[in-house]
């Protein structure tokens, strides 16, 4: 494979040891490309460990703006002997491998079809720095400097970023720049440079920003007016709560130092969702963030909230589960768990953001929907979206926007009503009116509870009352179908009866795959789901296509199952494209899977 003159189109993979300070150096590298106006997409692949195990950071640079993960590493920067064999194997033929040549490589590791770029990083740092910790940290800056010379990254951009990063610790700026300069100098004196692929300044970023999805969800919760957050630490959702804390400490503290918010680290996920439900019942906007194992523990409470009709927002940052092994890898595998969480007849709306911008928007939407529908709303993100930095549209807020707090009665409303019943369907949409404790001295009180109550809110065990309530909840579900965000539908330039359906972090890779397939003469219409229950638009998309590829990141085709179950689709029309190896899905994988499937069906 030739790699000549490929400007702004390559993948660099960093192989590090976790806990060695490589993360900030790697981010610096990615951000320098962003600052040069070129689309970039970094992804962390890290172990469930704090120090000492292999961790990888992949940076895809794409002039065309493709932000999904791409197979094929053009340049691997390896500073971890533990994973060296695997790292050398990961490089595409014709590619490059940068390594610390302080110690020579074993001969049997060498490959004829790639170029080895040896830089004596440890030797350079040992000569330059006395403190062992500095020797380790600045080694990372040496390779960033070396990369700038190899890939034509403007050194001034790196200097600027380092100055911004250490603005409050100015003493650290010169030694960091010095370390990068040492890397540049070594490359200029000893190695062929620049490489046949590299970075060239462009203006392709527009006003886009770089941020992770968990921070964006947290910011969304701030703008949605959430005042109570209850959570329990679990990868990969922990940073949602931490970011909420951090934004609130900037944006929600009064001049007297008191806080317009309360955050509790609960004793477990059961308590976390219980607190969020209690707060919502009492008229505050509250949420929790967790991952699959947490959703499992929250099941009983989710059913209670469904039946008692209490709003609550749950952000599920999905990962591979359960227990140990792959909790730090990504997946979209909580769909059926979340959709039908709890015992009895229950189902819950889900929202599927695909970018940090959408994490913000859909988190705000989740709070409005929860209050409007008086039911749990799940925001389904995943580790890739939540914990990786993404190039994304800037956040937008309209100051004239008002929050939809739903059907809540004030004391005046209650005085004006001849009679109040908590579960009366006055408007015919299945959604009753609720009251907040403490509103009125003599009117509107009720006891929130589980399965059965009369429409007036009185405890009952009568079959007809139970059934009546369940039918109203079904009507409410129908109302939800029209309130959740619509799907995003793209029609191919060439008319086709084939469709592709995807959601969440599969989006970037799927859109790229659609371009690749179109170029191969396989046009696809595309439907990006943004919510469950599926609206009429999704039903129409399915109706108007003969064959639909459902692309998702789990083993069992969970979204396909939901489509079949909820829309009554003939299963043969929905063809699964499934990635479940724990790494973000790639366009290449989708393209190959669909091509294979098409070939099989045409030759069969």
């Amino acid at each position, binding site marked *: 494979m030739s790699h000549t003159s490929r400007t702004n189109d390559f993948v660099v993979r960093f192989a590090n040891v976790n806990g060695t300070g490589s993360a900030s150096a790697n981010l610096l590298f990615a951000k320098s490309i962003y600052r040069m106006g070129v689309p970039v997409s970094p992804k962390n692949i890290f172990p469930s460990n704090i120090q000492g195990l292999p961790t990888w950071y992949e940076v895809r640079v794409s002039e065309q703006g493709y932000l999904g993960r791409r197979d094929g590493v053009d340049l691997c920067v390896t500073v971890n002997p533990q994973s060296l064999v695997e790292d050398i194997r990961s490089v595409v033929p014709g590619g490059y491998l940068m390594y610390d040549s302080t110690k020579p490589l074993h001969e049997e590791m060498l490959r004829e079809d790639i170029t080895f770029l040896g830089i004596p990083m440890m030797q350079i740092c040992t000569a330059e720095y006395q403190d062992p910790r500095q020797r380790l940290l600045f080694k990372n800056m040496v390779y960033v400097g070396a990369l700038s010379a190899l890939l034509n990254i403007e050194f001034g951009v790196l200097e600027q970023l380092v100055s911004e990063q250490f603005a409050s610790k100015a003493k650290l700026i010169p030694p960091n720049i010095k370390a990068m300069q040492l890397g540049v100098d070594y490359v200029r004196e000893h190695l062929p440079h620049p490489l046949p692929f590299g970075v060239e300044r462009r203006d392709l970023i527009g006003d886009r920003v770089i941020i992770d999805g968990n921070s964006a969800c947290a910011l969304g919760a701030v703008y949605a007016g959430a005042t109570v957050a209850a959570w329990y630490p679990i990868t990969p959702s922990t940073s949602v709560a931490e970011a909420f804390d951090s934004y609130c400490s900037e944006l929600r503290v009064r001049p007297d130092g008191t806080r317009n*918010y309360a955050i*509790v680290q609960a004793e477990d996920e059961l308590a976390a969702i219980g*607190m969020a439900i209690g707060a919502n019942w009492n008229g505050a906007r509250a949420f929790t963030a967790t991952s699959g194992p947490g959703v499992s523990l929250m099941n009983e409470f989710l059913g209670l909230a469904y039946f008692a009709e209490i709003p609550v927002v749950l952000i599920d940052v999905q990962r591979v589960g359960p227990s140990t092994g792959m909790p730090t890898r990504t997946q979209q595998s909580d769909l059926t768990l979340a959709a039908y969480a709890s015992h009895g007849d229950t189902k819950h709306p889900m929202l599927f953001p695909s970018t940090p911008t959408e994490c913000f928007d859909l988190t705000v939407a989740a709070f409005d929907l929860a209050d409007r529908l008086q039911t749990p709303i799940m925001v389904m993100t995943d580790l890739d979206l939540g914990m990786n930095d993404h190039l994304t549209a800037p956040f937008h807020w309209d100051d004239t926007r008002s929050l939809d707090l739903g059907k809540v009665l004030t004391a005046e409303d209650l005085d004006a009503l001849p009679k109040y019943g908590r579960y009366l369907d006055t408007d015919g949409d299945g959604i009753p009116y609720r009251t907040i*404790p403490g509103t009125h001295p003599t009117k509107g009180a009720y006891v929130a509870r589980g399965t059965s109550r009369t429409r007036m809110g009185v405890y009952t065990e009568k079959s007809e009352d139970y059934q009546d309530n369940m039918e109203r909840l079904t009507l409410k579900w129908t109302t939800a179908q029209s309130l959740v965000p619509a799907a995003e539908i793209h029609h191919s330039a060439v008319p086709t009866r084939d469709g592709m359906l995807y959601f969440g972090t599969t989006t970037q890779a799927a859109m790229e795959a659609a371009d690749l397939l179109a170029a191969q003469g396989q046009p696809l219409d595309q439907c990006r789901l943004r919510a469950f229950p599926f609206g009429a638009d999704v039903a129409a998309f399915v109706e108007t296509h003969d064959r639909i590829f459902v692309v998702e990141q789990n083993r069992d085709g969970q979204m396909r199952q939901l489509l079949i179950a909820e829309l009554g689709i003939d299963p043969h029309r929905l063809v699964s494209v499934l990635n479940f190896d724990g790494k973000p899905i790639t366009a290449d994988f989708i393209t190959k899977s669909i091509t294979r499937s098409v070939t099989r069906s045409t030759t069969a």
Partner: protein
Amino acid sequence: MSYVKPAFRHPELPRNELGYTKHDYEGGLSTLCAGCGHDSISAAIVQACFEMNIEPHKVAKMSGIGCSSKTPAYYLGHSHGFNSVHGRMPSVTTGAYLANRDLIYLGVSGDGDTASIGMGQFVHAVRRNLNMVYIVMNNGCYGLTKGQDSATADVGSVSKAGSVNPFDAIDLAGLALELGGTFVAQSFSGDKHQLVPLLKAAMHHKGFSFINVLSPCVTFNNNAGSTKSYDWVRDHMEATATIDLVPLRTEITTAYDDGAHQSVELHDGSTIVLEKLAHDWNPRDRNSAVRALHAARDEGRILTGLLYMDEDRPNLHEILHTTSEPLNKLTHVDLIPGASALEKINAGLR
């Protein structure tokens, strides 16, 4: 079945300072077994709220699952209630309390709901010192599933079916003390004279108020050999009261008494007067309360009354530095930073 109590009451029922009669604090007709200790506790709650001049809608009634947790339907009919899931009343109450610090949170639970399935949430609620009253209606058995032993059943206690409980009981009051509970009391459902003032003091306390109330189960744990039966508790208390057991009676009053009374002045100027009969016990000294409880247990006595209180420990809102205005009253202006703040955030992400 749904039950509605007749609404008629005598027109000249006494009224409290707010003009409410006791009827205004009542709830629906109880569906518990006739003679259930829990109904006496419900009656004590009605009495205490009436005497405390509490506006009924300023109370939130919280419960989990079990016979005890059904009781919120039987008192304070003008208050909102939340009959949540088994063992999880503390977390729901924590959330509710975070949302609005101005209501009185009256949580009821049972010994199964607290000492078994809900133990985790119970201990963390004590730790966080949320401002609530936590009543355990403790009958040593699972009533609603027909009489299985609970974790508070005493070792050697005989169930109705004749089996002998082989496990040591969990002492909930002792545990609450150990965990730093800031108001820990013990009482008996049959002793209204003690329970009503205790409830009043608990509602008055600005932190976690725990009352473990022995409340016999007439149907499944009122047999000979049970240590939570009416007969056992009454006989035992009577016997110990005349010899050496000492119910530590409390009542809120503004007057000092002489002799065996100890007056505890509260931060807001009101006073709890204790008829102090355990000579080496000081309600403000946790170690002394723990010692007294241990001594009583060793001698097979049930120590009742206010065991310990600490007004100085900050409650959860104080720990979190929450604003004094209830969070559920904050509006758009307090909560939404607006477009210009978001623009600044965007700028920091480039």
